[in-house]
């Protein structure tokens, strides 16, 4: 645990990628094998088993810190991270524990069947023997919220260098459904076991946004264009008589979409499709917020299946008859995909249509129809491109439509989280409804650090009322708020819900009376949908 905490601190102390990789590599070269496996599990977002309820941890921390609950909450509002807040509030321990990371995990797992009294004793004794930094890391583990400031790509690079293997192979090996309690570092990383590979998706190829205009991409005839659908990017994997559906975030989401189970019998063994899961009704995709209603749910009810049925719109074919197709050019993969589609007709299996265009100008005209087609814009793919790993420039580009926008008034502010805990950086915006301001969106991104400081200063000087961490402010500042989608929503006061709201611009030139109205939003709602 000391070594891992030190790694965590060291990673936190550099902003340079190469130094982070070097630190990770040093860890993977020197740490005990069991610890390496657990570290890897944590770095790839695998949560340790949760044996403690958050409410219990809070109660124990309060007892140990010996402060009133409201002060505990105020402290949290300032830190923005519960595990860290607790580490800062607990008394400083004189000694440090020598247990290794994997020993801690086994001890934690053993706690799942322990009584509350045993659990409390276990946590107290850990807190009493850890340094504040160790308490922080330990809290992250028990609260199941461990995230570290390194991307998976860096971890992959470090492991690849430490075992002298290709990064792409490591990426592939650490994806999928492995359990640190049931495997070893050697089995997972060093020794490839073919039987374990069935579930694994391929690393997704991700696109950058087009820089400026598509004209810069050269000849229009070298490129495919298709609609960019607004759903969940996913891979459908059929191997060894099993179906696995993976989200782009490497989550196994097979159970969330029972409509797609039919792929198991529909597709031949050894098939992997890349595509988008979208809700689909009356021959057209439904807006993203419909899909959102079923994402977080544990049980997919009959009602949901009726109201928000999904389909899979295929973009690409990554594996056919067990062969990795990624090295083949886009046009060959596309032809194979079209053939597969033609042979396996089913209403949940759709093909993302290619758009017909002879010049970039023609494509620009089609682009204006994106919203009418319930698409976010285009994906543009080079016909000769292979299917690459991760976010790479050159072969795939996304060309999104400009966001919808309105000018709205800042009415509430709250301190931010993480990097922004010192500043009022989370805002609620309102539009005019006659002479009243009606809140319609929350946004926290889009301003520069300097602008955040200015707004923070404004908030502190112009607070009308405080409600816990939220302050209402004198309606003065106007911002242009951009968003991706707009829908009617009875749950919102304004009757309208917007998707991905963010601040596009601080309209210092605009007096508060000239901000947009609810009527303007309703007009936007009607033109879009």
């Amino acid at each position, binding site marked *: 645990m000391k070594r891992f905490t030190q790694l965590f601190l060291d990673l*936190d*102390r*550099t*902003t340079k990628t190469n130094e982070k990789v070097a630190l990770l590599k040093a860890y993977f070269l020197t740490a005990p094998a069991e610890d390496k496996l657990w570290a890897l599990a944590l770095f790839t977002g695998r949560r340790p088993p949760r044996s403690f309820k958050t409410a219990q941890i809070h109660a124990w921390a309060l007892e140990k*810190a010996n*402060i*009133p609950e*409201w*002060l505990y909450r*105020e*402290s949290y509002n*300032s*830190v*923005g*991270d519960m595990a*860290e*807040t607790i580490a*800062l*509030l607990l008394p*400083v321990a004189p000694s440090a524990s020598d247990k290794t990371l994997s020993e801690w995990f086994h001890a934690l797992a053993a706690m799942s069947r322990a009584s509350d009294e045993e659990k409390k004793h276990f946590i107290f004794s850990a807190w009493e023997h850890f340094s504040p930094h160790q308490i922080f890391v330990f809290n992250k583990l028990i609260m199941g919220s461990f995230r570290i*400031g390194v991307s998976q790509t860096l971890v992959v690079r470090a492991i690849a260098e430490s075992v002298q293997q290709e990064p792409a192979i490591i990426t592939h090996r650490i994806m999928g459904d492995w359990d640190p309690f049931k495997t070893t570092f050697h089995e997972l990383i060093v020794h490839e076991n073919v039987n374990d590979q069935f579930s694994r998706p391929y690393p997704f190829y991700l696109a950058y946004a087009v820089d400026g205009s598509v004209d810069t991409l050269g000849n229009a005839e070298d490129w495919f264009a298709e609609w960019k659908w607004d759903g969940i990017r996913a891979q459908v994997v059929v191997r060894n008589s099993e179906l696995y559906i993976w989200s782009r975030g490497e989550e196994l989401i097979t159970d969330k979409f029972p409509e797609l189970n039919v792929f198991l019998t529909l597709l031949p063994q050894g098939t992997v499709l890349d595509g988008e899961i979208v809700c689909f009704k009356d021959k057209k995709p439904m807006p993203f917020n419909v899909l959102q209603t079923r994402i977080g749910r544990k049980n997919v009810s009959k009602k949901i299946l009726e109201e928000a049925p999904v389909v899979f719109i295929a973009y690409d074919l990554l594996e056919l008859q067990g062969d990795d197709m990624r090295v083949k050019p886009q046009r060959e993969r596309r032809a194979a995909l079209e053939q597969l589609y033609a042979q396996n007709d089913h209403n949940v299996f759709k093909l993302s249509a290619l758009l017909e265009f002879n010049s970039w100008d023609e494509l620009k005209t089609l682009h204006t129809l994106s919203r009418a087609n319930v698409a976010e814009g285009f994906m543009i793919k080079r016909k000769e491109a292979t299917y690459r790993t991760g976010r790479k420039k050159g072969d795939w580009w996304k060309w999104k439509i400009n966001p919808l926008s309105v000018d709205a008034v800042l009415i509430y502010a709250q301190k931010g*989280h*993480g*990097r*922004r*805990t*010192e500043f009022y950086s989370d805002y609620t915006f309102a539009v005019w409804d006659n002479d009243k301001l009606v809140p319609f969106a929350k946004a926290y991104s889009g301003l520069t*650090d300097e602008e955040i*400081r200015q707004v923070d*200063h404004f908030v502190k000087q112009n607070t009308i009322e*405080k409600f816990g961490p939220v302050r209402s402010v004198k309606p003065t500042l106007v911002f242009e708020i951009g968003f991706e989608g707009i829908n009617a929503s009875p749950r919102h006061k304004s009757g309208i819900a917007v998707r991905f709201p963010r601040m596009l611009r601080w309209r210092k030139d605009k007096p508060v009376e000239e901000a947009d109205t609810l009527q303007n939003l309703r007009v936007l709602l009607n033109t879009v949908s």
Partner: protein
Amino acid sequence: MAKPTLLQFTSSSIFCARANVHIDPWKPVDFAILTHAHSDHAKVGCKHYLAHKDSESILRLRLGENISLQTVNYGEQFSINGINFSLHPAGHVIGSAQIRVEHNGEVWVASGDYKLEDDHFCTPFEPVKCNTFITESTFGLPIYKWPSQNSIMNDIKEWWLQNQQQEKASVLMGYALGKMQRIIKNLQPFNDTPVYAHGAIYNVNERLRAAGFDLPYIPLVTNDIDKKMYKGALILATPSALNTSWMKKFTPYSTGYCSGWMAVRGAKNRRSVDRGFVLSDHADWSDLNRAVAETSAEKIFVTHGYTDTYARWLNEQGIEAAEVSTHYGNEEESIKEGVV
């Protein structure tokens, strides 16, 4: 009409009506007593100033060479219109003072900013018994617990040594007045390792040296210094230098930032510095409580920082407290260095 209290909180200062004296005014007034020379407490434009003698050199540098300024020693009594005043060490920065105001046995103390730990440069804090104590609460949350100055200095030395081994410069940032002199005093001796200073710090240091304070000479970073000299060197800089082209000449370098805010990970990461050192010239949570207790005051006013939280805490502890609105602390501890 109710009799005005000995000190009042007005829209321009902490005001003593009977003496017609303003403490740390943020608007121009005729007569200002200043707690210390940081720019949120010492504003330009007053007709006459009074401060501790150790503040004089910096006040003249920042407010103008020809300001009308009277200085006093700690503990020296003086009276204005029958009201008795004296200044007492606040331990915040050089010359920082708590202002004690007394009339007919009633005592108020306006403490400005303060810390309890001896920083080995300015005169250490001394508690002053009073009826009413006006306190800051910059770090008025129990999450703020300062490690000892000694352990932080060791961390800085270790970081500097590590950077030397990697042939990097160590760019250490902090407030020009206070923090930097404290760092210089406590990191010494430098032996033969080169140390350089940013202009804002150089100006403050040289002023203090000229006024007779015991500080070593730290050369200014200039364009004609050979860049090779920066390898392994310690560069003292203000936070405003971060992400400016001024930094380029030190490449490769590691950045360190000295501030109480560094106790929280998010605060460090938001500034994109490599290392945060938890070194503050303000009292931490337990020292705030200790300072308040040692005054034996019946009433506490909280002027800046986590005012509502800290006032509520004191009330729950049975100490009557209220928050008041002032213009102090707008620069927080070290967000921006004033124009020097």
